[in-house]
C-alpha cells in the first residue's frame, strides 16, 4: 500500500491539481465519492438484497482556510459524506485526497498521521462524549493516542485547550454530565483542536443546541479559524447558520450535490430549483421581507435512497421538471450567465428573478405517460 501514501502523481489524470504548489493546492479534494450501505437479509448467508445509496458521486474541493458549507434535508447524505471524508466509513468508490495525498485506501496505521490533521466535531454533544470518562481524559485522548504529551504536560495542554474554547480549566476532572449542552460542545471542539488539525469537519455542530448557545459556538468556531488557520467543512440544515459561517456552500439532495457556489452568489441567485425552494422555506428575520417573499412549497417526501428516481433525482418533486429530467441526469456545471465557481446540476435552471409559482411537481402527469412509453424509467418513485 505504499504507493497509496505517496502524493498524487503529476503524470496521473489530475495534472492540474498535483502540479499546483502546496500553497495553492486545495486542502481536500473529493473525487466521485460513492458510499452505498448494503441491505442484507438472512441468518447464515446474508444475501445482499439492496443498497442504500447514501452518497452517489460527490466531487468537490475545499481550499485552505475556507469554510465550505454543506446543506440539505435530513437523510440527504451530508453526515455520511462527512464520515467518508474523515474515513470513518470506507468508501464504496471514489477518492478522498487530503493535501495532495490519496487517503482513500490507507490502513488504520497509515491513516494515523492524517487523523492528526483532520478532525471532526459531532452533532450530539451528549452522545459524542463518553459519559464515563473525565473531561480531562476526553480532551487529552488525542494527545495520548498520538504520543504528543504525557502526564503533567498533557494536563497543562488540556487545560490550555479548555481555556481556548472558553471552559474553566479547573473543571478538568469533571464528567460530561456535569456540563450543559453548549459547554459539552465546547469540550468536543477542544478535543478536535487538541492535535492542531488543519481541517475540521463539523457535522451539524450546532443543530442540537439552543439558539443562543448556537451563536456562542459559531462565534467560537470563527475565532478559532482565525487563530489557528483552520479549514472547515461545515454541515448544517439551518440555512441562516450556513450563510453566516460559509465562504462557499454546496447543496445536497439525495446523495448528490445539486448546486455549489460562493455563499453570496448562492443565496443571492440560486439556480437549482431545489436550492430556490430551500431558500424560500427558510425564515427571514424581517417581517417586511417575510411578507413579500414567495414561498415555494415542495410536495411529497425525499424519495428513498434505496431506489432513487432516474435521471435528475429531484425531478419527482421539481416544479420545473420536464420529461428530459427523468431520463438524463444533468451534470454539475457552470450554467450560462453564471460566474466560474457557480455549479448547478439542472437541465432547466431557475433564471435570476424567476418565481417558482407552480410548486407542484410539474412532471407527475408527464411521468406517468413517460413511464408507459420508455423502458428503463419504470423504477420511478412518484411521490
Amino acid at each position, binding site marked *: 500500500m505504499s504507493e497509496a501514501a505517496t502524493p498524487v502523481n503529476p503524470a496521473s489524470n489530475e495534472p492540474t491539481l498535483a502540479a499546483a504548489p502546496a500553497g495553492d493546492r486545495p486542502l481536500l479534494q473529493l473525487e466521485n465519492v460513492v458510499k452505498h450501505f448494503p441491505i442484507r437479509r438472512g441468518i447464515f448467508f446474508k444475501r445482499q438484497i439492496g443498497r442504500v445509496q447514501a452518497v452517489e458521486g460527490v466531487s468537490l474541493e475545499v481550499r485552505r482556510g475556507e469554510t465550505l458549507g454543506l446543506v440539505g434535508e435530513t437523510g440527504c447524505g451530508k453526515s455520511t459524506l462527512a*464520515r467518508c471524508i474523515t474515513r470513518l466509513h470506507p468508501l464504496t468508490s471514489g477518492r478522498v485526497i487530503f493535501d495532495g495525498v490519496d487517503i482513500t485506501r490507507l490502513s488504520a496505521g497509515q491513516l494515523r498521521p492524517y487523523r492528526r490533521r483532520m478532525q471532526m466535531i459531532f452533532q450530539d454533544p451528549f*452522545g459524542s462524549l463518553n459519559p*464515563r470518562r473525565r473531561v480531562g481524559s476526553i480532551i487529552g*485522548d488525542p494527545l495520548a493516542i*498520538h504520543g504528543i504529551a504525557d502526564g503533567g504536560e498533557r494536563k497543562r495542554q488540556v487545560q490550555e485547550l479548555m481555556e481556548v474554547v472558553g471552559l*474553566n480549566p479547573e473543571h478538568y476532572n469533571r464528567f460530561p454530565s456535569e456540563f450543559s449542552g453548549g459547554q459539552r460542545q465546547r469540550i*468536543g471542539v477542544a*478535543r478536535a483542536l487538541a492535535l492542531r488539525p488543519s481541517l475540521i469537519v463539523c457535522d451539524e455542530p450546532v443543530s442540537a443546541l439552543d439558539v443562543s448557545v448556537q451563536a456562542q459556538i459559531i462565534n467560537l468556531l470563527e475565532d478559532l479559524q482565525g487563530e489557528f488557520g483552520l479549514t472547515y467543512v461545515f454541515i448544517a440544515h439551518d440555512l441562516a447558520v450556513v450563510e453566516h459561517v460559509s465562504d462557499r456552500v454546496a447543496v445536497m439532495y439525495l446523495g448528490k450535490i445539486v448546486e455549489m457556489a460562493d455563499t453570496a452568489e448562492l443565496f443571492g441567485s440560486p439556480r437549482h430549483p431545489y436550492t430556490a425552494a430551500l431558500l424560500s422555506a427558510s425564515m427571514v428575520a424581517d417581517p417586511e421581507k417575510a411578507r413579500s417573499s414567495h414561498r415555494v412549497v415542495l410536495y411529497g417526501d425525499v424519495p428513498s435512497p434505496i431506489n432513487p428516481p432516474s435521471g435528475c433525482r429531484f425531478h419527482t418533486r421539481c416544479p420545473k421538471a420536464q420529461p428530459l429530467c427523468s431520463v438524463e441526469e444533468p451534470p454539475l456545471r457552470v450554467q450560462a450567465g453564471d460566474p466560474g465557481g457557480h455549479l448547478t446540476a439542472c437541465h432547466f435552471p431557475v433564471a435570476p428573478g424567476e418565481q417558482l409559482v407552480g410548486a407542484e411537481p410539474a412532471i407527475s402527469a408527464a411521468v406517468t405517460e413517460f413511464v408507459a412509453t420508455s423502458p428503463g424509467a419504470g423504477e420511478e418513485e412518484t411521490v
Partner: protein
Amino acid sequence: MSLSPFDVGSAALVADEDQSLEALDAGRAIEGRSPLRLAFARLRSDRIAWLAAGMIVLMALLAVVAPVLSALTGHSPYNPDLVNGTDSFGQPYGPGQAGFLLGTDNVGRDILVRVAYGARISLLVGVLATLLATVGGTILGLVSGYYGGWIDALLARMMDAVLSFPYVLAAIVLAAVFGGSLPLTIGVIAFFSWAAIGRIVRGQTLSQKEKEYVEAARSIGAGSFRIMFVDILPNLIAPVIVLGTLLVPVAVVFEATLDYLGVGVGPPTPTWGNMLADDQGSAGFGAWWFWVFPSVALLITTLGFNLLGDSVRDALDPRTERLFANRRKKVVVGGGPDASARADTDRLSGGTEAR
C-alpha cells in the same frame, strides 16, 4: 473577529454556571465524582446493603479465624477424634456439650471448626471463580460484540453452548478423569459461569459501539483495543459489577453441590457440601446439628451476596431509588448542610447513564 453581542453573553453564561456549581461544591476542590463513587455513596445509605455486608463480613471473619479456632479449642478440622469428640457410648456430642459449641460429627470432629474451614473453601471458590468468570466473560463479550462477524458468531454460539450444557454432568466427568481438586473446582465453576457475563457484555457492547463517542474515538485515531477497553468498558462496568456480585452466591452453591456429590474439593478438606454429604448417611436421625450448621452458613453466605447484589444494582441505577426510598437512611453521604442539595446533583448526574 469583531466582538459581537454573543461573546458577552457567552462569558456571562459561563461565569454564571461556574458560580452555581462552586456553591454546590462548597469550597471543595473542583473534581467531578465518578458515577461509581456516586453509586458507592448511594450504596452506603442503603440499610439492606449494610446487613448484607455484615453477613459477608461475618463469614469472611469465620474463614480468617478458622486456624485460630482450631488452635484455641485444640480440635483439628481433619482428624477424627473418637476419644474426645464422642461420648462414652461413641455417640457425637450435641451443641454445647463437652466444650463443643456446635457439637461434633459422627467421627468426633468439631463442627464449628469444620464450618469455619468450610467457609474458607466456599469464599475462596466463590470469589475466585467469579473473578475468573467475570474477567473472561467481559473480555470475550467485548471482543464478540465489538468485532462482530465470524468472531461474534463463534463466540456467541460458544456462550449458548456453555449455557445449555448440563454442568453437573460435565463436572462429574471431569472430576472422574482428573480427580477432584480445588483448582479444578474453581476452573469448572468459572468455565460454566463466564457465558452469563459474556452474553450481557456482548449485548451492551453491541449498543455502545454505535454511540457517537466511539466514532469520536476512531476519528482521533484510537485503535480497536483502546476503544474496547478504555472507551466502551467503563460504560459496561455497572452491569458487570451487579452480575459479578450475583454470581458469587451461585458459585458458592455450585461448589457446595459439587462437594456434596463428591466431585469437588473432596475430603479430608472440610467443605459445607461434603459436611452435608457425610452426615446424611450414618447417624443423621436426631443429630440435627450435623446438617443445620453447614446449611445456615451456606444460607448466610448466599443471602449476603444476593442482597448485596440487589443493593448494588439499585445503587448503580438511581432510577429505582424512589421505589426503595423507605429503606434508605435519612442522612445522605456524610450529612452536613449541603447534603440534600448534593443528593439532588447525585440523581441528576448519575441518572441518565447507569443501568
